[in-house]
């Protein structure tokens, strides 16, 4: 056990960001890609909060994180609606197939 | 055993403190040898045990009460065999359920099927952390109390969807989808009601909210302004829906969906769902009592003042805690009773109608009432006596009407026993 500091949170955020990126690259399903995206946003929010906690001692980072969560919700709503639309048009939500079938 | 004995001997009041004393008495001087980081989780665990004991006792009592209430509403006697008026019937049923075989359908997703009851229970049980019983008898007065309830209460949906999903049964999936839409959409009126209370109290904390309502009965938030009863009704309706109680019991509508999302659950897993439902029932009613009905406040100012004046008077403190415990539990139990009453009176409504009620009735009304309340709070900080009086007058009409109906009914029952000429 050691004292937990800013570096821990930043590394953790970086790790989650990388995993989210990997999910986006690897997964073919549109909904799964969306999940990866949520992870990216959350990793960013974690960094904001960690920074604001350790370097400023303020709640501004938290306010930004709230906006991130709000953005994530709006993004999820719209993205899923688009995914549904894509499904309607291409009878599938595999992202690579969809990109090749653009017309 | 010792724990139980201590608890009984000291009474339910100070249960947790007496436990601490008990540990102290047991260890004496050696107490300091125990590192704090072990001692504290232990103390918290003791709180858990008290609460799980409370939940169990409450569930036993509530189920018995539900049976008796329904039975007497339906001109029956209900359970009569096991114990005094069937008081031990629930225990017998519990033992039976414990011995029931656990059947998991062949094509079910076994892992999720197993996890679902855990999530449902774990989504309800932590809510008891913020449920206050009196100044001293509460696990923890979390700074963000009401928000905590709003957030953790949302977790249960996940378990319900998981249960319906993992069963690989059409009825379960129907139930899960219904549950998801219903629980999810009724969280909005619930959240708006929370907002209004937070707005009035200026705090999330349960204890703060109760302290704001101390004094005379007119201080209760229910009577704050004519819009508050709307908020209360909206909250109560939404809490019925959140507990999946009739007339909002669509997720488990037995005449339509057989048993809804827990169709494929048997034995102990099923009883966990059941336990969680009853625990949630108490939580929402207790929170409603805190939010609108002044929590543990008796509503009589001199009595409150007398009880609060406990300086150098330990017995007064004990008395005060006991009275407050009784008051808040009575308020909550009354609301629980109303829940049961509604369940045994009203038919079930349909899915589209449930959405209609939520999105087109409750949501706009609660929104308007919330904005109005904030405007009133802006104009008359701390409330206005005229408005309070107005509220009491306006809303006592339907209340008196209900009372009259109840009186008619009860008098009617008494008349029944009067031998008639025939």
């Amino acid at each position, binding site marked *: 056990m050691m004292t937990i500091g800013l570096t821990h949170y930043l590394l953790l955020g970086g790790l989650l960001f990388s995993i989210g990126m990997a999910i986006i690259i690897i997964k073919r399903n549109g909904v799964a890609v969306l999940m990866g995206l949520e992870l990216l946003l959350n990793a960013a929010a974690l960094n904001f909060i960690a920074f604001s906690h350790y370097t400023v001692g303020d709640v501004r980072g938290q306010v930004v994180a709230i906006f991130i969560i709000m953005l994530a919700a709006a993004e999820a709503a719209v993205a899923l609606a688009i995914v549904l639309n894509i*499904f*309607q048009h291409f009878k599938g939500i595999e992202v690579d197939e969809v990109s090749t079938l653009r017309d | 055993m010792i724990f139980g004995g201590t608890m009984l001997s000291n009474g339910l009041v100070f249960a947790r403190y007496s436990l601490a004393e008990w540990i102290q008495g047991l260890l004496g001087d050696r107490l300091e040898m125990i590192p704090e980081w072990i001692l504290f989780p232990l103390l918290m665990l003791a709180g858990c045990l008290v609460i799980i004991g409370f939940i169990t006792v409450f569930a036993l009592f509530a189920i018995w009460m539900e049976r008796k209430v329904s039975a007497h509403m*339906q001109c029956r006697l209900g359970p009569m065999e096991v114990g005094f008026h069937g008081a031990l019937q629930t225990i017998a049923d519990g033992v039976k359920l414990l011995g029931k075989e656990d059947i998991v359908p062949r*094509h079910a997703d076994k892992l999720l099927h197993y996890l679902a009851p855990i999530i449902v229970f774990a989504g309800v049980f932590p809510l008891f952390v913020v449920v206050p019983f009196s100044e001293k008898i509460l696990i923890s007065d979390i700074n963000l109390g009401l928000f905590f309830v709003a957030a953790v209460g949302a977790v249960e949906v996940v378990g319900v969807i998981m249960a319906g999903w993992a069963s690989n049964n*059409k009825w379960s999936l129907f139930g899960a989808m219904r549950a998801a839409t219903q629980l999810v959409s009724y969280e909005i009126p619930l959240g708006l009601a929370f907002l209004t209370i937070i707005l009035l109290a200026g705090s999330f904390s349960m204890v703060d909210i109760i302290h704001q309502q101390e004094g005379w009965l007119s201080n209760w938030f229910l009577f704050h302004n004519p819009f508050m009863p709307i908020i209360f009704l909206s909250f109560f309706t939404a809490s019925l829906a959140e507990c999946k109680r009739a007339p909002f019991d669509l997720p488990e509508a037995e005449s*339509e969906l057989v048993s809804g999302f827990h169709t494929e659950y048997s034995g102990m897993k099923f009883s966990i769902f059941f336990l969680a439902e009853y625990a949630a029932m108490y939580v929402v009613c207790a929170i409603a009592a805190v939010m609108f009905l002044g929590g543990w406040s008796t509503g009589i100012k001199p009595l409150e003042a007398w009880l609060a004046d406990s300086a150098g008077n330990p017995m007064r403190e004990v008395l005060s805690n006991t009275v407050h415990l009784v008051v808040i539990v009575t308020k909550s139990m009354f609301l629980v009773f109303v829940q049961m009453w509604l369940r*045994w009176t*009203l038919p079930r409504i349909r899915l589209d*109608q449930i959405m209609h009620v939520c999105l087109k009735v409750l949501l706009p009304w609660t929104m308007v009432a919330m904005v109005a309340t904030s405007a009133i709070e802006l104009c008359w900080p701390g409330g206005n006596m005229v408005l309070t009086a107005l509220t009491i007058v306006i809303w006592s009409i339907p209340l008196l009407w209900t009372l009259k109906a109840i009186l008619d009914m009860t008098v009617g029952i008494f008349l029944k026993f009067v031998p008639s000429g025939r």
Partner: protein
Amino acid sequence: MGEATNVTEVPLPQGGTVAVKPGDFRTEEMLLNIGPQHPSTHGVLRVVVRTDGEIILDSQVHIGYLHRCFEKVVENVTWTQVTPYTDRMDYLASMYNNLGYSLAVEKLGDVEVPERASYIRIIIGELQRIASHLMSVGTYGLDVGAITAFLYCFRDREITLRIFEEVCGQRLNYNYIRPGGVSGDLTDEMLKKIDDFIDYFLPKIDEIDNLLSMNGIFIYRTAGVGILPLDLALDYGCTGPVLRGSGLARDLRKDEPYGLYEQFDFDVITGKGEKGQLGDCWDRYMIRVREMRESCKIIKQALAKIPEGKFIEPKLLKNVKVKKGESYLKVENPRGELGYYIVSDGKKGPYRCSVRAPSFCNIAVLPEISRGCMVADMVVIIGSIDIVMGEVDR
């Protein structure tokens, strides 16, 4: 990926494959069994519904789970031995089954029925109608989730069952009305009990109205649901409350009076679409509630003028002589027109006995009126048709 041509074979967990073609966006049809073991199918009815989410696209009714070859069995027994078998068809209105059969045999065999027996038949028959409607109304409450109304109805039905038990020693399968009369007399004490019951029961109907019929949620659930237009009802041969719910005042007790019904004064209740549309579930339900009042009216009148006399020719209890020929006779059962088509070759028992079971005809219309409803409505519609599987399957 082109148009919807690529059908893929997807392995199922239970083995085998299922052909999957990329369906359209929002419609994914699912086949769902409602019944035979379902709380709301009132027996062993099985309805296979094709749904889109919760909305029913189409449904198919499967029956036969309770088939007991009534028509075959009675070809091998004597005329009087048939009545116990009729009991078991519509087990909620056994008296009426006995009555229909007895009337048909009496008509074919030219058997005289004592006047007192006719009165007893009317009293008992109407009491049976009340019992049957109470069951229907109560279980309908159960279908929409109002359990208390169900128990209230059962509490009152219990009294009628006790009366029946006292009259003929049975609570469900009475075998009471026989060709030529009834199997036992009604004593004055029993008549008094029936009278008391009617006095007790009339206010109870208001109680049911208050608790269930006029309940906002109940109306919300049933009004405007499962609308059965009159032409459709006639086309499918629906009768009884189902047909009257669609607005046609057809009641055999008035239209083609049997027994002594022409001497009684009562109203034929029809649906008026008060709460929703004409012919919806609420109308069908309400007909039953209101008919109970009419039945009480009839019983009151019958009790007032029941004559003294014999209740059956004793020799008729053994067997009836029936000449060669055939007859068809229908009576107004609580569920609709119960018809008995009896063919005799002059021997001891029926050569052929065919039954027009009202539930059998009424339930056939279910797919028509449940289209486009939700699964929850399906339950409500089945309940509003009020079927007894013993009668549907015979």
